[in-house]
């Protein structure tokens, strides 16, 4: 593999790489604002300037400059090498690049940083970006100087509403155009552009439009400073109090990799952030997914219900066990859910097979929605493929409704909260026990409801539309009396006196392996 030298480190690169991309791949950071690995190169922030040594035997490209001589108290002519932006400079074999080791590059960075802060407002105390702001980080790493300008800074519009999700502050903006390029290149909706020049320039929305495509929150995400802020997160939390869990978005079948940012003190989830995965979601997430964290707290079932009335969890569990202990297998059924993880579904399926001895397995999930060819999938369930793999013979929701309508089912244990279609027939099932996270048709028609933990409150494995199996970490502790659905199944099986072979999550996952192998036909 060809390689070049960056500050005496050998950096291998692939043909077509720029210096910054090759360096980033091996974990060497060259400071930058406008460059983003998922966007085109703009090379307008000038933060990534590096010194490139001329090829052997060739003179370096030198510029005439005037340097201030403090002793003589005047400007004296000097020469300095022409610096190149690392984000635009193509890597070449044997190239010698000087970044931190070049005094010209470090001086240039300090000057660029000073220029960017020239008209910056004193906003850190009220800025949502504070704590994860490039301007702050790079001031400390590359500038270190105090303010020299004594004039009043240029004032520009603040609090400009770009659309339903984004508010723009032109004074904080460094016009790196990442947001503009994102809208053009990824969201394919060129709704943002730059107006004016010099220190008067700012980002504007096209006249007559709003920033309202399905990926608006990514403009906030790519913004390296606090210019674009999300209405959803604005003034809600300070980022240094938040911790992150590595999770998978459950908004649709795409299964974008994300970080779930939560406050460990209040166990409250505040936002999602995309987590890079080249194979699934690149660097991005859609608005629907980014705002999906709201569902963690909305319309939740937090306490056990018996006959619609709140109940002690142990009492509800005992009642549920009473119902199923002598249930006739032919009129007993379980309902799997594409909303839930493989673990939850596997535990339930195993209960049906070994505990309830029934062959009646159905599955449910959320109703389909809009999809596009960027990220969003029309299937709004994170685990449809997982359920299909686990139980290829599971019957769809329509057949559940039909069977219920015909009175063929007396005892049903259902996982999941939402139904893809009209579910009034569920009311005809005499003994419906629901393991539900949210209010919905199952919770409404169930004789007994056991509160299940949501995706943010439990570890789980999901299989996305590509068939990729992805694990999601637990972020917060389960709310109220809720607990992971597989735990409920475990307890129910103990109460039924038909205990499963597993106790812990690790054992459950181990037990799951042959089952998924069986599903793909590897075991007779």
């Amino acid at each position, binding site marked *: 593999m060809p390689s070049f030298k960056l500050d005496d480190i050998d950096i291998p690169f692939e043909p077509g790489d720029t210096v910054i991309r090759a360096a980033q791949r091996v974990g060497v950071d060259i400071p930058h604002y406008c460059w983003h690995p998922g966007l085109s190169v703009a090379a307008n922030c000038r933060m990534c300037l590096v010194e490139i040594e001329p090829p052997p035997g060739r003179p370096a490209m030198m510029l005439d400059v005037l340097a201030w001589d403090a002793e003589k108290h005047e400007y004296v002519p000097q020469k300095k090498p022409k610096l190149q932006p690392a984000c635009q400079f193509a890597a070449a074999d044997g190239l010698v690049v000087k970044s931190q080791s070049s005094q010209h590059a470090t001086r240039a960075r300090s000057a660029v940083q000073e220029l960017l802060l020239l008209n910056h407002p004193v906003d850190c105390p009220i800025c949502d970006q504070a704590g994860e702001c490039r301007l702050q980080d790079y001031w400390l790493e590359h500038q270190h100087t105090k*303010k020299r300008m004594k004039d009043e800074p240029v004032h520009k519009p603040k609090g400009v509403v770009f659309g339903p999700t984004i508010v723009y502050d032109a004074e904080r903006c460094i016009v790196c155009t990442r947001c503009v390029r994102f809208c053009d290149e990824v969201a394919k909706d060129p709704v943002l552009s730059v107006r004016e020049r010099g220190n008067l320039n700012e980002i504007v929305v096209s006249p007559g439009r709003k920033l309202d495509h399905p990926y608006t929150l990514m403009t906030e995400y790519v913004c390296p400073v606090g210019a674009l802020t999300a209405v959803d997160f604005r003034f809600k939390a300070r980022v240094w109090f938040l911790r992150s869990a590595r999770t998978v978005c459950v908004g649709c079948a795409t299964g974008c990799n994300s970080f779930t940012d939560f406050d460990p003190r209040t166990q409250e989830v505040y936002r999602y952030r995309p987590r890079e995965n080249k194979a699934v979601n690149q660097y991005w997430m859609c608005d629907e997914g980014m705002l999906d964290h709201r569902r963690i707290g909305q319309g939740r079932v937090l306490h056990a219900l018996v006959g619609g009335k709140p109940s002690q969890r142990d009492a509800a569990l005992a009642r549920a066990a009473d119902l199923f202990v002598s249930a006739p297998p032919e009129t007993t059924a379980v309902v799997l859910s594409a909303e839930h993880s493989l673990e939850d579904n596997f535990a339930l399926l195993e209960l049906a097979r070994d505990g309830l001895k029934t062959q009646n397995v159905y599955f449910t999930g959320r109703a389909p929605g809009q999809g596009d060819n960027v990220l969003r999938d029309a299937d709004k369930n994170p685990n449809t493929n997982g359920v299909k793999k686990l139980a290829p013979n599971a019957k769809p929701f329509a057949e559940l409704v039909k069977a219920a309508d015909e009175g063929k089912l007396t005892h049903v244990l259902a996982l999941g909260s939402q139904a893809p279609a009209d579910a009034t027939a569920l009311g005809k099932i005499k003994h419906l026990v629901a393991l539900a996270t949210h209010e919905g048709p199952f919770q409404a028609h169930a004789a007994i409801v056991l509160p299940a933990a949501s995706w943010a409150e439990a570890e789980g494995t999901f299989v996305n539309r590509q068939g990729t199996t992805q694990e999601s970490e637990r972020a917060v502790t389960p709310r109220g009396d809720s607990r992971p659905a597989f735990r409920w199944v475990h307890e129910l099986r103990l109460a039924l006196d038909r205990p499963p072979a597993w106790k812990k999550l690790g054992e459950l996952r181990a037990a799951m392996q042959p089952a998924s192998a069986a599903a793909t036909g590897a075991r007779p």
Partner: protein
Amino acid sequence: MEPIDQELDPAEIELPAEPMLLNVGPAHPAMHGTVRIVMELSGESIERCDVQVGYLHRGFEKMCERGTWTQVFPYVDRCNYVSPMLNNVGFALACEKMLGITVPERCQWYRMALGELARMSDHLTCDGAMAMELGAFTPFLWMIKGREMIWDLMEEETGARLTHSFGRVGGMAHPPTAGFKENAKAVTTHILGIIEEVERLLLGNRIFLDRLEGVGVVSAEDAISLGWTGPCLRACGVAYDVRKSHPYLRYDEVEFEVPVGQAGDSFDRFMVRIAELKQSASIVRQCIERMADTGPVNVTDPRVILPPKEEVYSTIEGTIQHFKIVMEGLKLPAGEVYAYSEGGNGEMGFYLVSDGSGTPYRLRIRPPCFYVTGGLERVITGAMMADVVPSFGSLNMIGGECDR
């Protein structure tokens, strides 16, 4: 009448020589801080004893691992709380050693002057308390009056009498006040007068001398093997003083002597402290003579020192600097360092381990009192019960330093 004890052997009339267990502390007023001594007495002499220091446990080394490096200052204040300035400066020096920075000259003289004043406060307390515990209440009051003057001066400089939290990595929280030099000169003059009076009152007093001379003797070898440093070690005749042996700040530029004792008894420890009081007063004077009236007190590296408040509120650079240092903490380079200075009771060492983040990875304090107190058992075993209090007092155990 026949005498009733005619047939008895005189040995049988003696009371049975059963050892008596006596517990002193941990909350006894003579146990300067929470330390407990369990003694096995034979008559009035101590056959065996067990000194237990674990009654004060705040876990300050663990606490230090939570906040930023700057947030450690209030904790080190509470190690030797009679001379907190020495701990402050000692810790600041350790961090600066790690960062490879040196504070401006004015700050170095200021640190030395304040530190020597703190040492005087320490020694005045120890010697005053020793006299009081032997019944001489007047010298105690006089010496505490001198200490009050120092504390008033400290309050003037730092805003707090006892726990100043005044040191900073890369400087001090504030520059010296306008009246510092004059006040320090007045205070030292006054204290030298007090010391003279105390000497006149005590050193001709038979009772005082008899209770201290030849009591609580420790040999130089024992003291070294016990890890003793400071006045207690110097009383044994070993002239080890960090300020002389490994000069830091500008101690190599001031003139002072390291007073040593000969016998290593309680009296020598008392006298070494008296002599050191005079030396410290002389160092304070030399410092304020050489300290410039103007000039920077803090280093200029913006990654280390907080910007002035006006800049924080009016410029973005100042705000960012303040934000980074307060929220993330100043970052010490990854590595470890042991830095030591002369505390009130000996070598005050800080062993720092940094992982390069803004929070201490591990912080170990070598408090001189811990080692000195470790030798108490040897000092009082075989001694008379009544000698425990003056011997213990002469070691000047500070509870806060023995926190384990």
